[in-house]
C-alpha cells in the first residue's frame, strides 16, 4: 500500500476528531437498547438503589440500569445542561420544587398512558403522595419513591438537665402571641454564660452558651424546616388553590404575626441572631457541638444527626397550634422520565419497578428514608429503631393526614429569588414583617407575568 505521510496525518486527525465529537453525546448510541441511565443526588442512597438495579436486572434480563450520583448542587445544573445538549439521563430523581418547571417546558414525560396501560395501583402509596406528581396541567409526571416530614431533634442531655420530660416535649402547644408551652421549654433550655436559664432571675440574654432553639436559615419561600408548621397551624396557607398556587399570601397577618413571633425569640436571646446562624457551617454542626437545645429538621436528616457522636439526640413532635392540631409539611421525591429519552419502555419499566413494593422494601430496609409504599414502612421503622430512633413523631402527622404540601409552582426559582432576601432582611431586623406584603406583591407579579 502506498500511503503518503500527509494522508496518514489527515486520517489520524479525522480519527481523533470523530470520537471526541461523538463523546459530546452521552453515548446513547454506544450503549445497548435496554440500558437505562439513572441519576440520583443522595450518596447515602446509592447502595440501596444499586441493589434495586440488581434485582431489576434479574427480573428483566432485557434491561439494565447504570446509576450515576451527583451532589445536590451540581445535580440540577447538570440536569438542565443535559436537557439542552440532549444528554440528560433517561430516568432521574426529581423534587417537587423542580419538576413543575421541567413539566412546563416539556422536558419530562407524562406517565398517564403507561400507568393506565399497566394498571399501576396508585393506592399502595402513602395517602396523598401520588397526587403530588400530577402537574398543573393535570398530567402525572412521576411515581413517588419516598416522603419526608419535620420534627424537633433535641439534645436529651440538655432537656434532662433542664428537668423537661419527654412527655412535656411531645405535648407542646404554640401560639403567635406568647409562644405557648413550646416557648416556655425553649426558654428553659436556653443557658447563659454564667449557667442561668432563660426563666431564671439574672438571665443575661446577650451572653448565651446554649440557645434553646437553633435554625439554619430564614426559610425563604417555603420555610420547610424553619417556620412552615407554625404558620400552617396558625391557619395560614401559602397560596390560593394549593398546591398550584397562582396567588400567594406572604402578606397575610397570620403569616406576618408568626414570623414576628419567631424572630422575637432572637430578641429574647433564645435563638442566635440571623448573622450568627448564617455564619455557622450548618445547623447540625452547631447542634453537634452542643450549642443548641433543639433544632427542627426533616426526616432526611436522620442519618446526619446519627453521625453526631458528641450529643444524644432524640425526636419530639411539633407543637399543637391555634387551629388545634399539629401540622407538618409532607414532601417527597419521585422518579421521572426525561422526555428526550430514546429508551421509553426500558425507562418506564425501571420507574415502575422503583415504585413497586419490591424495590421500596429494599429502600426501607436500608433505613435512610421513609418509603412511599405504605406496606414497606414497617421495615423502615424497624431499621430506624435498630439505629436508636423512635421515628413515630415523623409518621403521626402523615398517618393522620395532618400535612400540607411543599408550595410548588413552575416559577419556584423566581419566587425564591424574591422571598429569600425578603425573609433574610426580616430575620436580621433590617425590615419589619409587614414588609413581606411588598415581597408578596412582587411574587404575585411574577406569577401573573408568567401565567
Amino acid at each position, binding site marked *: 500500500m502506498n500511503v503518503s505521510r500527509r494522508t496518514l496525518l489527515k486520517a489520524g486527525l479525522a480519527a481523533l476528531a470523530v470520537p471526541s465529537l461523538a463523546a459530546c453525546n452521552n453515548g446513547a448510541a454506544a450503549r445497548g437498547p435496554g440500558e437505562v441511565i439513572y441519576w440520583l443526588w443522595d450518596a447515602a442512597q446509592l447502595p440501596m438503589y444499586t441493589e434495586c438495579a440488581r434485582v431489576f436486572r434479574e427480573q428483566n434480563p432485557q434491561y439494565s440500569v447504570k446509576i450515576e450520583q451527583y451532589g445536590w448542587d451540581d445535580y440540577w445544573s447538570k440536569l438542565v445542561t443535559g436537557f439542552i445538549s440532549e444528554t440528560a439521563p433517561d430516568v432521574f430523581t426529581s423534587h417537587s420544587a423542580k419538576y413543575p418547571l421541567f413539566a412546563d417546558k416539556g422536558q419530562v414525560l407524562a406517565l398517564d398512558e403507561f400507568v393506565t396501560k399497566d394498571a399501576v395501583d396508585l393506592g399502595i402509596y402513602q395517602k396523598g403522595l401520588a397526587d403530588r406528581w400530577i402537574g398543573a396541567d393535570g398530567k402525572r409526571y412521576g411515581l413517588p419513591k419516598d416522603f419526608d416530614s419535620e420534627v424537633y431533634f433535641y439534645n436529651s442531655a440538655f432537656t434532662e438537665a433542664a428537668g423537661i420530660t419527654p412527655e412535656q416535649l411531645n405535648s407542646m402547644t404554640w401560639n403567635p402571641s406568647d409562644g405557648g408551652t413550646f416557648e416556655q421549654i425553649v426558654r428553659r433550655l436556653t443557658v447563659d454564660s454564667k449557667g442561668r436559664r432563660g426563666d431564671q432571675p439574672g438571665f443575661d440574654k446577650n451572653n448565651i452558651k446554649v440557645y434553646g432553639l437553633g435554625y439554619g436559615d430564614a426559610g425563604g419561600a417555603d420555610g420547610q424546616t424553619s417556620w412552615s408548621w407554625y404558620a400552617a397551624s396558625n391557619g395560614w396557607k401559602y397560596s390560593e388553590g394549593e398546591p398550584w398556587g397562582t396567588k400567594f399570601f406572604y402578606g397575610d397577618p397570620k403569616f406576618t404575626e408568626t414570623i414576628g413571633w419567631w424572630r422575637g425569640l432572637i430578641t429574647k436571646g433564645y435563638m442566635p441572631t440571623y448573622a450568627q446562624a448564617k455564619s*455557622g457551617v450548618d445547623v447540625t454542626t452547631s447542634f453537634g457541638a452542643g450549642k443548641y437545645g433543639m433544632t427542627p429538621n426533616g426526616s432526611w436528616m436522620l442519618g446526619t444527626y446519627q453521625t453526631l457522636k458528641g450529643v444524644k439526640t432524640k425526636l419530639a413532635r411539633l407543637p399543637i397550634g391555634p387551629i388545634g392540631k399539629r401540622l407538618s409539611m409532607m414532601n417527597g421525591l419521585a422518579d421521572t422520565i426525561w422526555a428526550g429519552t430514546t429508551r421509553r419502555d426500558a425507562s418506564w419499566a425501571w420507574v415502575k419497578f422503583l415504585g413497586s413494593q419490591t424495590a421500596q422494601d429494599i429502600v426501607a430496609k436500608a433505613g435512610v428514608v421513609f418509603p412511599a409504599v405504605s406496606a414497606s414502612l414497617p421495615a423502615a421503622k424497624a431499621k430506624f429503631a435498630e439505629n436508636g430512633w423512635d421515628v413515630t413523631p415523623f409518621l403521626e402527622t402523615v398517618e393522620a393526614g395532618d400535612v400540607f404540601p411543599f408550595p410548588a409552582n413552575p416559577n419556584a426559582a423566581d419566587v425564591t429569588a424574591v422571598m429569600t*432576601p425578603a425573609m433574610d432582611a426580616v430575620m*436580621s431586623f433590617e425590615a419589619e414583617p409587614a414588609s413581606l406584603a411588598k415581597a408578596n406583591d412582587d411574587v404575585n407579579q411574577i406569577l401573573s407575568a408568567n401565567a
Partner: protein
Amino acid sequence: MTAVTNAPPNERSHGGQAPPPPKRRRLGDLKVAMIFLLPATIGFVVFYIWPTLRGAYLSFTEYSLLEAPKFNGLDNYDRMIHDSFFWNALVVTLEYVVINIGVQTVLAVAIAMVMYRLTRSITVRAAILLPYLVANVVVALVWYWMLDFQVGIVNQGLTWLGIDPIAFFGESNWAIPTIAGINVWRHMGYTALLVFAGLQTIPAYVYEAAEVDGAGEMKTFWRITLPLLRPVLVMVLVVTMIGSFQIFDTVAVTTRGGPINSTRVIYYYIFERAFTRFDFGYASAMAMVLFVILAIVSLLQIRLLRAKESDLA
C-alpha cells in the same frame, strides 16, 4: 528625578549601529508558523470568540434554555436599568474589588520589598506561593470552617483574647470584607512574586546613586522603586482587577449571595439568573455589560498610569 539624571548614558538611545534590516521577509516560514498557531487559534475561536459572539446575540433574546431563543431587541438592557438587584450587584462587586485589590496590592508590594531586601531564597519564594497552589474552593471552604461563628477556630481565638466573636459571613457589613480578605490571602503571594520580578528589573546603579545622594529607605522607595516599578504594577493591577471583578467561586461555596443581598456579586447574579432561574438572555445581557465595564476599566488604567512608558527610558 535624581535617579534618572544621574544615570549613565543609555547605549541604545545614543547611536550605536542598529542591525541592518532583514532583506526579505521569510515567507517560507509562514506555512510552518500557521501549523503551530493553528491549535491555539482553534481553541481561541471555539472557546472565546464563538461564545462571546453567541453571548452577544443571546443578550438580545428571551432564552429560557429549554426553549429556542426569541429575539426581543433591547428589552433585557431596559430591564437591567430597572433591576435593583443588578445595581446592587454592581455596588457589591465594586466594594469587593476596592477592598480586594487595595489590600492585596499594598501587601504584595510590601512582601516583595521585604523579599527583595532580605532574601533571595527559593524556599521562601515557594512558600509565599503556596496559598495560590490550593484550589479556590478548598481555600474558601477551609476559611468558612475556621471563621464559623460558634465552632470556628478564629472566633475561639478572639474569645480567648477577650474579643466578642464576629459573624464573619453572617453580618452584612462583614461578609464582603471577609470574602475579599480570603482572596487576598490566597493571591497576595502570587502577586508579590510578580512585583518581585519587576523589582529585579530595576538596575542597581539607580539605588547606588540614590545612596550616594543620601536618600533614606522611605525616600528611595517612594522616589525610585515605585516610579520604576510602574509598568509592572500596571500590568499586575489590570490582570488582578479583571480577575477580581470576576469573583464567583468564594461566594458560591460560602454565602451564596447572602446575607440578604450583601454578597450577591455580579458574576453570582449572572449565574443565578442563567442557571437557576433559566433567564439566559437577561444573564447574557448582564455579562455583556460586565465585559464593557472591564474593557473600560482596563483601558483607563493603562492610559492613566502610562503603562507603555518607563521612567528608565
